């Protein structure tokens, strides 16, 4: 009984004094800041540009040194526009107890219970006006990456649209054991900045499978197509490791 009581005191105290925290994102290509319209190269030597980056962040939690989580409510749409900054872009504001954390976790995607409601009745960041509703396959596009491939025989647009409940992307940036990840939130509040390395998407997967834009069917990656399933899972796993804490 008394043990339980002691355990509760700090929780009550700290949650009473929440500190404002801003989540910011830097878009990267490798370790360089992304520039829309600049030409980059995949490991396989295909040249490309990025034109659009848009994704949902939901089910965010900060991880305490003892592994407990401070869950943050909210769903945001991170929307990087071509003529707007790509570095230090504020995507979410939250309130958490100040103190030491060993990491952050979140999902890229829309929670299942919100993903299948009638989109005509939902408000931003959901709903039709988000531009993320997937007209042909009910539910939202969780992340949307679009660009141009500069192929030897001309430029071709490509899109990666991932959605459906099976492609919700869990991102886990915490490390209780080695303590490499440390987030300190002072009582006055702070910022957590993440790097998102978009070039990670194009890394080869098992058996060397890669997103080869010279194949027309791979320029339109959508949901569950059996034709593109292998590459979708390669991109999916690549993307779940594409976020890191900016130092």
């Amino acid at each position, binding site marked *: 009984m008394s043990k339980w009581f002691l355990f509760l005191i700090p929780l009550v105290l700290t949650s009473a004094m929440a500190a404002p925290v801003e989540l910011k994102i830097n878009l990267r290509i490798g370790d360089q800041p992304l520039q829309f319209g600049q030409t980059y190269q995949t490991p396989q030597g295909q040249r490309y540009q990025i034109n659009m980056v848009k994704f949902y962040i939901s089910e965010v939690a900060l991880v305490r040194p003892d592994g407990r989580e401070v869950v943050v409510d909210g769903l945001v749409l991170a929307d990087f526009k071509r003529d707007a900054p790509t570095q230090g872009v504020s995507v979410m504001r939250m309130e958490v107890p100040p103190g030491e954390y060993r990491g952050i976790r979140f999902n890229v995607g829309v929670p299942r219970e919100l993903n299948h409601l009638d989109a005509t009745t939902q408000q931003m960041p959901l709903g039709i006006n988000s531009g993320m509703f997937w007209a042909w396959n009910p539910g939202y596009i969780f992340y949307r990456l679009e660009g141009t491939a500069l192929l030897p025989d001309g430029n071709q647009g490509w899109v990666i649209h991932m959605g459906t409940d099976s492609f919700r992307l869990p991102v886990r940036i915490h490390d209780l054991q080695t303590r490499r990840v440390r987030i300190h939130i002072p009582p006055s509040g702070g910022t957590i900045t993440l790097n998102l390395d978009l070039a990670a998407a194009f890394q080869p997967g098992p058996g060397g499978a890669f997103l080869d834009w010279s194949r027309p069917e791979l320029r339109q990656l959508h949901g569950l197509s*059996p034709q593109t399933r292998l590459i979708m899972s390669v991109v999916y796993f690549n993307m779940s490791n594409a976020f890191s804490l900016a130092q």
Partner: protein
Amino acid sequence: MLMHLLTLTVVMAALIGAVLAATHHPAVPIPPDNPQTPAKIELGRKLFFDQRLSADLTISCASCHKPEFAFSDGGNAVSTGVGGRRGTRNTPTLTNVGFRQGLFWEGRSTRLELQAVGPLTARIEMDMQPEVLAQRLEAIPEYARAFREVFGEAPTLKTTTFALAAFQRTLLSYNSPFDRFQAGDDLAMSEAALRGMEVFFAESGDCFHCHVGSEFTDDVPRNNALYTVYQDLGLALATGLDEDVGKFKTPTLRNIELTAPYMHDGSIKTLREVVEHYNRGGEPNLNSDVLMRPLGLSEQQIDDLVEFLKSLTDRSFTTNPAFQPPR
């Protein structure tokens, strides 16, 4: 003789059903959150024919859904969107589209309001972003005014799709020779078409099991044995299931004469070739519908079936001034 009587009863039952449907065809379901008003329908019509709804100002809904071809793409197997980008699918008719329970060839989109997000934002169709669309419409005084009158707010992607849906729910076609015959005009259909109708609604042609009722569709995705190996996987693209490969929503056959070429990829050029496909039983594949089998129709029956399909053409639909671009 008994067999004959049975067939006759089936035909009669089908006909009586169709008569009832033709004379009092059901009212289009209107979703409670998007009631029809004349102003909204008129706004939807303007938007439907307006190329300013596309990124490079060259494509409207009507670029692919052309009124004179019953809102299909007039002879093109697949359609071309902004920047000359070609899609991979045949543009379906919008005849009586307000009744469709599932939209797109997979039939997975549940309502017209949501469906329209597809073409408006797809790279290979109109390629618009929600903010760009809203700003562009707001900058056109006529639209800025009309959206406020109809929706009480500035234009958005959402209200654009609501107005488009309202217009599309008016696209009704019930004045084909077939409809007039159902309504009691004994001379509306040719002898050949009447014979073809019997084949269509009997086990010999077996078309009516999928092309059901007076809408000629069950709105269910099915595999009609078009290919042994499908390039476009159909419903499986959405579900990821092997058993869904090659399944496409049964299309309506109303105005079918005007919507060539046929099938999801526009691969069959004429109605006669379509009927020959069914007569062969199609191409063997694992997911082929159980109804697909060689039919053994005679050349005469094939011609009759084609005549019947042509009796589903409603010219008053394609010339209706209410469905033409506003002046």
